[in-house]
């Protein structure tokens, strides 16, 4: 579960730009619908929350449900107000928190 998420920002970012941020994180996203080979239901464990905070300001959030695929890929947009760290956090049902920070550099 400690696999590093993959985050892609555009190569060239200018202040005021609206940029696309592509994210991919490894997670089984167990729906709670499946049964193991003994017929017992497998407990639900999905990433239920994803947040993107840039320079202390929330720019995007997602509340994921079992209908989201495993290894969730999410691409979203944000307005770059200036340089600052973009902190991305994924939290699953078990409370495991995956977090990664990328610096948004104005170039």
């Amino acid at each position: 579960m400690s696999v590093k998420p993959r985050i892609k920002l555009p190569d060239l970012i200018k202040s005021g730009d609206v940029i696309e941020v592509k994210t991919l994180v490894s997670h089984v996203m167990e729906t709670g619908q499946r049964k193991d080979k003994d017929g017992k239901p497998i407990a639900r464990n999905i990433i239920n929350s994803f947040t993107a905070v840039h320079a202390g300001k929330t720019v995007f959030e997602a509340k994921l449900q079992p209908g989201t695929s495993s290894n969730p890929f999410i691409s979203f947009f944000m307005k770059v107000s200036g340089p600052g760290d973009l902190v991305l956090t994924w939290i699953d049902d078990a409370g495991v928190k995956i977090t990664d920070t990328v610096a948004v550099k104005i170039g």
Partner: protein
Amino acid sequence: MALQVLIDRRTLLLSSAGAAAILALLPDGAHAQDAQALDASIRKAIGDAKPVEGRITLTLPEIAENGNTVPFEFVVQSPMTDADYVKAVHVFAPGNPQPEVATFLFTAASGKAAVNSRMRLAKTQDIVALAEMSDGTVFMTKRIVKVTIGGCGG
């Protein structure tokens, strides 16, 4: 308050019971109980607001060979200013065991209310997306996806 849905371009407003009946008549295995589950989920997401068609564009493949990962994309037309922005977009797959796919929350700092992600689909069905604006209005759109191999449980 009955949830009213605008179907096609006709100004035909349907009560939730009517919508359930219409969905039941759709081909490709859309069931009345799917419609009921969808109605309950929509009510949970947006309360009593009445969705109208427009402003949100949902892009999905016509045929999804593998229901485990079906790419989807939506864009909502909005100036995305502090006064007028998209608050949330809810995506539903009514034919899944649980209709909720995800809810995406935006702020004016999002710049653009658009997301690209992947969903699971159990069977061929109409995907519904609702966009909640900062002034409380709700826009909706629907897209049918044919699913070859379902991707939920089993």
